[in-house]
Structure formats: C-alpha cells, structure tokens
C-alpha cells in the first residue's frame, strides 16, 4: 500500500504496541546538549541504568556558550557547571562530545547535518523543539523533554503516539529577495501557531524541491512554531549530494547502498495525506513578525492588523501583542526603528545565510544607533565564512563577528537585549522576553532582511536595496 515517508519510517522503527496504545519507537540518532540533559543523566544514575546505545548519541554545547571570550572556566559559573556536567556525563557513558576545542562544536541542529550524522530514514530526537530541522533530510525528527531524554538514554526508544500528515505544497518560484524564512513565516501565518498540533508537516512542491539543504532546514526548523512537532522534506538528489563525503555519512559502495535505501523512504506518489494545503510562492513577500508569536507576521509592505477587524479570541491576542510591542493598529511595519540586529540561530545561522546577509552588507555601514552581531551556527560555518572573507565584510560594516552558539536567540549566554530594545532577528521566536530582557521585543525576518535593517536602522524591504 502507498505510504508517506512518515508512515514508512514509523513502521520501520516501531518495536511494539505499549499497553496504553502508544508505540515503542526506536531512536536512530540522539543528540544531546547541556541544558536539557543533566537531569536526565542524574535520573539514569539514580535508577542505576546505563546508556544503552552510547554510539548512537552525540553531544555538543550550544545554548549557554559565550560567543565572545571562551576561555575556561567561563566567567558565568553556572554556564561552566552545565558544561562540566555534560563533559562528565559524556565521559562516564562513552558519548562522543563535540566541545569547544573540537572544531566541530556548534548549534546541535547545525552540526548534526554538517557532520553527516543526520540522514534520511532515521528517527532523530533531541531535547530541543527545533529538532524538526533534521526533517529536511527526510528523517522523522522531533523535540523531546528531559524525561524522554532519560528514556532514550536508557532504552534507545520512546513511547510515542503517531501523528497525522499534512502535505504543504509550495508551488512556483520565489521572487528575488524572498527566502525560505519568508516561506515558513507565511505558512505559519496562514495555518496558525496551533494549526499543526497533531500533525507532521510534509513540505513539497516545486519551490521546496528547488531549495538547497540549508533552505529546507530553515523551513523544517520552524515547523514547531506552527504547532507541528515534525516537519520533513522527501529526500532527493539535493539531499544525497549534500551528504556525500560528510564525516559520518556512508562512503564508497556503502553510500550507493544507502542512496538506494534512502530513495525508498520518500512518500509514494499515490500516498494519502490527512490534509493538503497549497501555497503559491509568487504571492510571498519578505515577511516580518510584528507580534509576540511567530504567526503574527505581515509582508514588509503591509500594515499591522486592527484588533477590531480580528475575530473571536484572536482579537485579544492582537491587542495584547500590539500593546506589548508598543505598535499601533494600521501602522506600516516598514520604517520601524530597530536597536539591535541579530544574525544567527539554528534557523538561519548557516553559511548560505551569512552569504546572503553579507551581500546586503558589503560596502555599507551599520546605522550608528544599531548594535549588530553575527553568530555563526557552528565552528565550521564560522571558519568556512572566514575563508570566504565574510567576517571582514561584516566587521568593516560594523557588525560584531562572534563564535558559534545559540546566543541571542534565547539569551542563555551574555548576548541579550536590554530593556525595551527592539531586535531585527533571524531567529525563530518572538515570544515576550525571549531574547533575554522581559520587555525586549523581537521582529523575526530573513538574514538578508536583518542585514538591510541593520544598515538602514529600521525595517526596510531588502528588494529595494540596490
């Protein structure tokens, strides 16, 4: 019978039906970082359990890593304690750790793909909701909580209930200056921040097929912002070409065998989806969020909504967001003065993101009132960018060029907003207080749009930049 990729991977990893009706699902790849794992390792020790399959778990430090001075011990004692706990736990259980001295450290969702650990057909878990990123490779990848991290460490399996699958077809071609980030913000805006609850999102169609792996990762990354725990793209030649030659990818004859298997994992043409949605790429403009959840966005040429014309409970949501942001209904988003520009994160901290931003920045200067920083997603993104001279482009324009980590996406390190600062950010969440100041404000947009805003000192349409 014709099946979706979701069903195929689910069936191949299903161990048994548990008494409560959930499925015990085998986990092919488990990624671990310093924030959501220490309690899981403690619980394992308390119960006297070992890590069952240590060679299928890989660790790195990303959330709390300072992106400036990185000498150990870190100035922040708790950041040091969390890093040390991860080091001790990895050593005790034989788990490979890509630490700051490895040259491979970075945001867990950037390094998994980069190292070739992330592969089609796998089940992939990590104690982080943006694990959906790895679905770009045709994997079934989802975020889990700390108790589930404990379960995966102990058993390499999880108790899970299956999801429905919604196929989101993006048709046609994107205009110049319109990026993967704009596509996913548009999808979330259209389907809502809870529209994906209970679903895996399968992204398909010409627009998605033409995208690079970096772009597909941006799309899948933000699935969870639309409520979908899983997002994926069917694997194709773009996927296979990306993986060839990566450190943990199969090589030689094994790669050929892998490719044959990977092809069989893609959704069958005549599969049945639980829901189907079509989005026209040509209708998508550079998109900017104006509110306090990622579904509250407009095209850069548009004005902010009026709560009086919103329906039902959405009305209070719009009012609350406008009030928190200090915006008025009907005001244009373009021209909004910014204080901070942040380029980075697991959504948009890869090499192609930095290249697009650098194209906008080259030869320009950051507006005098703007604090601007670039935080590469990984050490290897950082060194690749430096080989291309992108660091110089950013530095000359007045950006801070930092070391790899999650940084100002969630401000668990020293990079944070102060007071009411307004940040143009290439990250994934504009929740109240997300970027470290309880009253700080975030406008989500593509890296190129952040770069343009940094130069202009306000939100501008990147397509108008010569």
């Amino acid at each position, binding site marked *: 019978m014709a099946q979706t990729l979701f069903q195929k991977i689910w069936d191949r990893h299903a161990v*048994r039906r*548990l008494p409560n009706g959930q499925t015990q699902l085998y986990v092919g790849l488990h990624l671990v970082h310093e924030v959501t794992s220490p309690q899981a390792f403690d619980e394992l020790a308390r119960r006297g359990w070992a890590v069952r399959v240590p060679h299928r778990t890989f660790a790195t430090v990303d959330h709390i890593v300072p992106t400036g001075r990185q000498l150990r011990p870190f100035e922040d004692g708790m950041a040091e304690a969390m890093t040390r706990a991860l080091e001790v736990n990895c050593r005790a259980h034989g788990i490979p750790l890509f630490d700051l001295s490895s040259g491979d450290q970075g945001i867990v969702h950037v390094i998994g793909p980069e190292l070739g650990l992330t592969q089609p057909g796998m089940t992939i878990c990590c104690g982080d909701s943006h694990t959906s990123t790895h679905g770009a490779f045709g994997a079934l990848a989802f975020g889990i909580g700390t*108790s589930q991290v404990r379960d995966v460490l*102990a058993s390499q399996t999880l108790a899970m*209930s299956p999801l429905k699958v919604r196929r989101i077809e993006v048709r046609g071609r994107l205009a110049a200056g319109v990026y993967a980030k704009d596509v996913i913000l548009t999808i979330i805006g259209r389907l809502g*921040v809870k529209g994906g609850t209970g679903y895996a999102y399968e992204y398909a169609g010409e627009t998605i097929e033409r995208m690079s792996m970096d772009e597909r990762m941006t799309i899948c990354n933000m699935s969870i912002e639309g409520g979908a725990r899983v997002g994926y793209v069917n694997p194709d030649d773009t996927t296979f070409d990306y993986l060839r030659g990566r450190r943990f990818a199969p090589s030689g004859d*094994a790669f050929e065998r892998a490719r044959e298997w990977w092809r069989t994992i893609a959704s069958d043409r005549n599969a049945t989806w639980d829901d189907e949605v079509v989005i026209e790429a040509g209708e998508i403009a550079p998109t900017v969020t104006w509110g306090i959840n990622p579904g509250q966005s407009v095209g850069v040429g548009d004005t902010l909504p009026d709560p009086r014309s919103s329906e039902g409970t959405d009305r209070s949501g719009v009012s609350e967001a406008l009030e928190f942001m200090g915006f008025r209904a009907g005001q244009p988003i373009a021209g909004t003065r910014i204080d901070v520009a942040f380029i980075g994160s697991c959504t948009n901290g890869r090499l192609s993101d930095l290249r697009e931003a650098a194209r906008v920045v080259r030869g320009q200067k950051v507006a005098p009132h703007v604090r601007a920083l670039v935080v590469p997603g990984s050490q290897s993104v950082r060194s690749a960018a430096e080989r291309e001279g992108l660091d110089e482009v950013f530095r000359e324009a007045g950006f801070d060029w930092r070391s790899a980590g999650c940084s100002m996406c969630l401000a668990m390190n020293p990079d944070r907003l102060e007071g009411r600062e307004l940040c143009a950010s290439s990250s994934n969440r504009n929740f109240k207080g997300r970027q470290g100041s309880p009253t700080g404000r975030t406008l989500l947009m593509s890296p190129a749009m952040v770069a343009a805003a940094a130069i202009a000192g306000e939100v501008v349409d990147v397509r108008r930049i010569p």
Partner: protein
Amino acid sequence: MTDALVVSRIERVDGTAITLRGDDIDTDRIIPARFLKAVTFDGLEHHLFEDDCREARERGGLHPFDEPARRHARVLIVGANFGCGSSREHAPQAIARRGIQAVIGESFAEIFSGNALMIGLPCVTADAQDLARLRERADASPDEPFFVDLRAGQAGCRALTVPITLPSAARDALLTGAWDATGLLLEDYAAVESVAAGLPYMKGFGS
C-alpha cells in the same frame, strides 16, 4: 525490577483553582530561559511566570500565581495552545513543583502535554464555553473547591460539572500509573534489538 514499576495512579485531583487568560501562552513565559541555567529542576517553581508576575505588579495588579488566596491551588485553568514553543520540561516541572496537579485548557501544545504526562501532570481539555464557566467560578471565589476526575471524564466545582477529554493513551497511562514508562521500554529488549538490526544505517549500510 526498579522503582519505575512502583506505580502511582492518578485518578482524581481536588483543590482550588488558578485561571490564566489568553491563548498561546508559551514556554518562555511559563519559565523564562534564564532560569534554565541549572543542572537540576530544584527551585524552578520560584520563577514560574516570573516576568508576567512582574509585569502585573508594575501595572498595579497581581498575577494569579501571586495572589495569596491562590497559593495552595491544585488546578490550573488555561486557554488554547497552552505551552507552545520550547520542549523544555522545565515548564511543566515548574508548574507541578508549584503544587498544580492538573491543567484544564481548550488545547495544549503537543510537546508540553507530553512532557507533563511524563511527570504525572494531567493536561485535560474542555470545550471553550465550559472553560469560560469554570473560569468564572474560579475567578469569583478563590476558595471554591474544584475537581478533575480522569476516570469519570469530568471536571468542575460544587455547582458545575463539565465533560473533559484527554488522549486515551494519556488517560490510560495516568489511571494505571504507567506514565513513567522507562521500565516498560526496557521490558522486551530482544524486540528492540531486532528492530535495530533491521535498520540498514545501524550497520553503516554494510552489505
């Protein structure tokens, strides 16, 4: 075998209630990221909704979690898509450690309700109109005792009973005490190994 099989059945929760208004209350509001800087979950309850509480105080009001009369509440009543955002278990941990033993809402973000289940905190749903009636009662009187009965599929207070639902797997896990599933996952390891052996990537696609 281990304490994982020492079951703790959760059938019914009784106590006073706290209500939160608004949909899409995200995990960063429940527990801001700066409080995730820790290697244990200890003390998280002291930072539950910390920024929202401060915002309410600055406006001259009190956040429901700051109201002295609701200090011992056991039931939390919320809107739609509660707990959206991060996978941080710190969010349900902070709520549970504050003394909340059941959450009633219009809907929940999936990772949040899954995490809550893993620590034995039931997240049950009720229809929007019923929720509004429950909320009204709870707001009117902080002393009103509420109940959430998972077996009967009902929640309410003295004068009002409404139907509630939760996914059958969650209901079953809570009623049988099997919500701490690690023991179950280790039970039949031969079956686990046979699935792993059938996955070509586990052998590096060797011939």
